[in-house]
């Protein structure tokens, strides 16, 4: 099921920027290849791909913030740490050590197996999405290093058809899992998705079985799968590989669920509890292992890899 994302929560948290400052690469046996200050200066000088204003109003704290400053802060609000959504390439850049990421299976392209047509034919949507997002599909995968540890990394991309899983996304995720199995690599998948892709109907649905079956084999081989859930992760992606992590991390306040809040509300016809389906709620419900803020993500992934002895 595909659901539309909801706007981020408007409740302003009182968390400080101290947490961010406290995060450096000092934990871990192996030296970090890149520090967060390197990364910050990198993103600060990089021209923004988003052609919007220099200033924006933070949906987390309603303050006007300087876009460059937000981007330099791992795309988090410098005032309230609201986590802005990331493209897959930005995510890869944030997570991996510089120049270590080698993208794979970039030649995979969606087709139109069902000749799907709603108000617009599917091929037209695909073309428009490619122009808008600058990518050809909703998943970027490859090998790389996180704080010096080799990993197989796959990141979904919301900017392409809401990160929905069709044949290509399912195939890339499956190949990533199979590659991690064959090469005995820890697997990190960063999810953000509206769910399965309606325009590929039954074939999208089958990607759920395909990716999950590949994870069974990875599990048999003793693999370590760290699933990182980010805002929003819903529908068929949640109900397949995203929930199958040996370790599941969630970014703060991310919307994570099977059904979207609107569908639930329409079904049960009552108000949803405060913070329902947000990371912190899932932590209390026992569904995720840790809520990890973006500045700590690299450290936390590296730590789990070390604990698992991978």
């Amino acid at each position: 099921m595909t659901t539309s994302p909801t706007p981020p929560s408007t409740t302003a948290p009182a968390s400080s920027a101290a947490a961010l400052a406290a995060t450096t690469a000092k934990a871990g046996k192996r030296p970090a290849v890149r520090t967060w200050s390197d990364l910050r200066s990198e993103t600060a000088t990089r021209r923004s791909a988003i052609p919007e204003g220099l200033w924006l109003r933070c949906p987390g704290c309603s303050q006007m913030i300087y876009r460059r400053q937000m981007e330099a802060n791992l795309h988090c609000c410098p005032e309230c740490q609201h986590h802005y959504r990331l493209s897959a390439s930005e995510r890869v850049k944030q997570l991996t050590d510089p120049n270590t990421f080698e993208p794979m299976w970039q030649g995979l392209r969606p087709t139109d197996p069902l000749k799907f047509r709603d108000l617009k034919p599917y091929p037209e949507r695909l073309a428009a999405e490619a122009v808008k997002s600058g990518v050809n599909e909703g998943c970027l995968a490859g090998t790389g290093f996180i704080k010096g540890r080799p990993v197989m990394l796959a990141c979904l991309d919301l900017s392409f058809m809401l990160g929905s899983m069709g044949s290509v996304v399912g195939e890339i995720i499956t190949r990533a899992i199979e590659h991690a199995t064959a090469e005995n690599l820890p697997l990190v998948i960063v999810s953000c998705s509206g769910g399965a892709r309606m325009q590929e109907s039954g074939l999208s649905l089958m990607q759920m079985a395909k990716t999950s079956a590949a994870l069974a084999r990875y599990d048999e081989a003793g693999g370590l799968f760290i699933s990182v859930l980010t805002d929003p992760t819903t529908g068929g992606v949640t109900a397949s590989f995203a929930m199958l992590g040996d370790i599941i991390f969630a970014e703060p306040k991310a919307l994570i669920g099977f059904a979207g809040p609107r569908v639930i509300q329409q079904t049960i016809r009552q108000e949803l509890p405060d913070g329902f389906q947000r990371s912190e709620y899932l932590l209390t419900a026992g569904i995720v292992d840790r809520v990890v803020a973006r500045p700590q993500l690299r450290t936390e992934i590296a730590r789990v890899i070390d604990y698992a002895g991978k």
Partner: protein
Amino acid sequence: MPAYYKMEFEKPLDELDQQIEAAESQLKAVTARAENPEARESLSDENVLLLQGQIDRLRDQREGLLASLYQKLGPWETVRVARHPKRPQTRDYIELITKDFCELHGDRRFGDDPAMVTGFARIGKQRVLVVGHQKGRTTQEKIACHFGCAHPEGYRKALLKMQLAEKYHLPIVTFVDTPGAYPGIGAEQRGQAEAIAVNLREMSRLKTPIVSIVIGEGGSGGALGIAVADRVAMMQFAWYSVISPEGCAAILWKEANEQTNSAAAAALRLTAKDNLELGIIDAIIPEPVGGSHRDQTGAAKNLEAWVLSALEELKGLSGDDLIAHRYARFRKLGQFAEV
């Protein structure tokens, strides 16, 4: 047929039914008068014969019309048939094709979801584990079953019993019939997505034969959650897709109405024929003329025959072979280009 469930495409059939009914009551009136000795003179046997002939012709016509209507059902009409309240459900098939059903309840963690039925049974000489969604027949049962929308405990119960089947080398037969997994607060809180995901992963490695049949509605992950099988079939007028036509219409057409639902049903390629062409299912089980809701026993007979032949095909395979083939079956699904 309950008055509240009208299928638009059967309208010509209803008209014929009315004509037949009218002719029959006319015949009844005529024969009633014939039994009255005073009125006997006024009618001839010809009159009766004429009426009887007319009724026979109408009945033939109706039979032909029924067959032809169901031969060219559109996708949205198929969805309507798949949801027919008299269509056989999991418990009906259990009743009709199995013997000595030993129902097993509960997930040992939270509760017993009536929307998911599990238990040992015999089909022919074969001992099996049956798993299936149950929609419910009476209003009370429907509400208890959430209209066939299972909760996480339903999926966990299914997996627990399937693992039992693996342990005792029993083949698993699953009946899929759900609009989708239940979208609610408790379901989310108890990990609906995780429950389904775990079923997908674990079913892929169960070392015992699994056959699945979409008997009515195959709605999205909630359907797939018990359908990662070695052989998957659909009843002729069932549907199987990533989302319901209404859900799809509401998102892509911005509004769900008769027209957009119909368009979405067509676009989703959700019929048995479509799913067979896409390689998602392996077989279509024919339904009696006019659909399974007209002849539950006939439907059950066809379903039983398919289940037995599918189990026969899988009989010789070792557990390792089974899961290797099952992996390959799902691994190849999906279509893309590589440049």
